[in-house]
């Protein structure tokens, strides 16, 4: 019996390991752009619960800043844009197993992602901020010493915390939940004292529930949003970059940003 358990655990671990390592197609010619054109669609993977970048409206249509931009880019490439809601935890798997062509959903640039994927030029700047209840009396990050902070699991908010060792260590506890709304709920019911999340997203909720939350002035980290493609698919990446630059020149990116975020946060030159 014991042996059986061991064997099954081993098999399971092997399987998970296998799931984790993708094939490397380093020697293959880069046909990524042609592939997209051939099949006539660009499949965009997103966590459709990430307002205002990509989310579902009351009519269950996926909308947002990223969606508007992606639609225009696909249009310019000459292909259809196909939106595929995925589990954010599984985004790397979705990309590696070719279920999606790109991750385009407030995807933050970092060193790890840079080494594992082909990334577009940064198109929007974002910061990690802390949100507290308006009447909490907390005004600075220092005020959060000995308090509890909650954030979304597998998000860059948790990376930002790692970069701010000192702040992180000053906390009593760091809680991770499944999504940002759950984090905000946790804050609202007193389960925690602050939420760390993307500024872009934070502004959406502060706007949504007027008077409930406030964003602390000090930011935890500066970061940039990029689009993630499969490693080696540079032709497709370059094509998207080209269209982003064009759209920036035409003022289209700024316009879309105004529409969803209320100001121009785009950084494409």
């Amino acid at each position, binding site marked *: 019996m014991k042996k*059986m*358990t061991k*064997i*099954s655990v081993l*098999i*399971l671990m092997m*399987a*998970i390991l*296998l*799931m984790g*390592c*993708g*094939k490397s197609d380093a020697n293959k010619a880069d046909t990524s752009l042609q592939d997209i054109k051939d099949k006539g669609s660009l499949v965009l993977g997103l966590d*459709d*619960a*990430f*307002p205002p970048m990509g*989310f*579902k*409206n*009351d*009519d*269950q249509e996926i909308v947002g800043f990223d969606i508007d931009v992606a639609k225009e880019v696909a249009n310019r490439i000459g292909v259809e844009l196909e939106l*595929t*809601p*995925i*589990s954010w*935890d*599984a985004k790397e*798997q*979705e990309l*590696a*197993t*070719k*279920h999606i062509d790109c991750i385009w959903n407030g995807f933050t640039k970092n060193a790890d992602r840079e080494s594992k994927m082909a990334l577009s030029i940064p198109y929007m700047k974002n910061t990690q901020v802390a949100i507290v209840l308006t009447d909490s009396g907390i005004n600075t990050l220092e005020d959060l010493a000995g308090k509890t902070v909650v954030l979304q699991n597998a998000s860059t908010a948790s990376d930002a915390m790692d970069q701010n060792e000192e702040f992180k260590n000053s906390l009593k506890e760091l809680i991770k939940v*499944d*999504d*940002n*709304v759950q984090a*905000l*709920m946790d804050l609202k019911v007193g389960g925690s004292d602050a939420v760390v999340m993307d500024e872009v997203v934070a502004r959406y*909720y502060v706007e*949504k*529930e007027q008077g409930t939350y406030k964003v602390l002035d000090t930011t935890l980290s500066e970061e940039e949003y990029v689009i993630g493609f499969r490693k080696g698919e540079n032709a497709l990446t370059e094509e998207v970059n080209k269209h982003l630059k064009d759209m920036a020149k035409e003022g289209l990116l700024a316009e879309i940003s105004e529409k969803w975020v209320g100001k121009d946060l785009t950084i494409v030159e």
Partner: protein
Amino acid sequence: MSPEAILKLLQYMITASAMVGKIFFLTLLFSLPLGLLACFGRMSKWAIIREPVKLYLLIMRGTPLILQLFFFFYFPYYVIGTTLPRFHAAILTCSINYAAYFAEIYRGGIESMPKGQYEAAKVLGFNKSQTFIKIILPQVIKRILPPMGNEFMTLVKDTALVSVIGVAELYQLATDTMSQSASTMPLVMAGAFYLAMNIIVSKGFEFAEKKMSYYR
């Protein structure tokens, strides 16, 4: 949330509930017979059949369904270079997972049958399959109705897990709408839908138990 938004969401939830129903019925369609097969394998006198089946039952019941969903959707890509469509992968995983539980429930029912029933059937000349189909199975079904009711109700709720491989269903609809509206209302509504579906399931089992109560 505004009343209009709630009303709209209500309509979408009805559609999403149909998806839950689809997963529920398809999973049962495959897992109920597969479970019986696994049950026979588990009770086989040949170790070459019995032991692999035992391993299957152990793995399926011993690992989280959510992990199995990930596994069956993504893993085939690394082996054969392609994967099943999301919905198919979800049905496949739920089916082989639930078949494992059903197998053990069947086995419990079959092994609880008194030996005398087999002997009476044997001396009357019934062959093995007649004995099973005419004598044993009908009595087993009556005995396993309560634990089966448990599993059926759990399945309704477990359909919420398939969203991890991107299959849109009720729970995902609720959490997505929650993100967009920053309101917990969608969750409460989804809860009501799951409850309503399980009320139907439990009523169904109540009816079946009543139907079977003509004998003791």
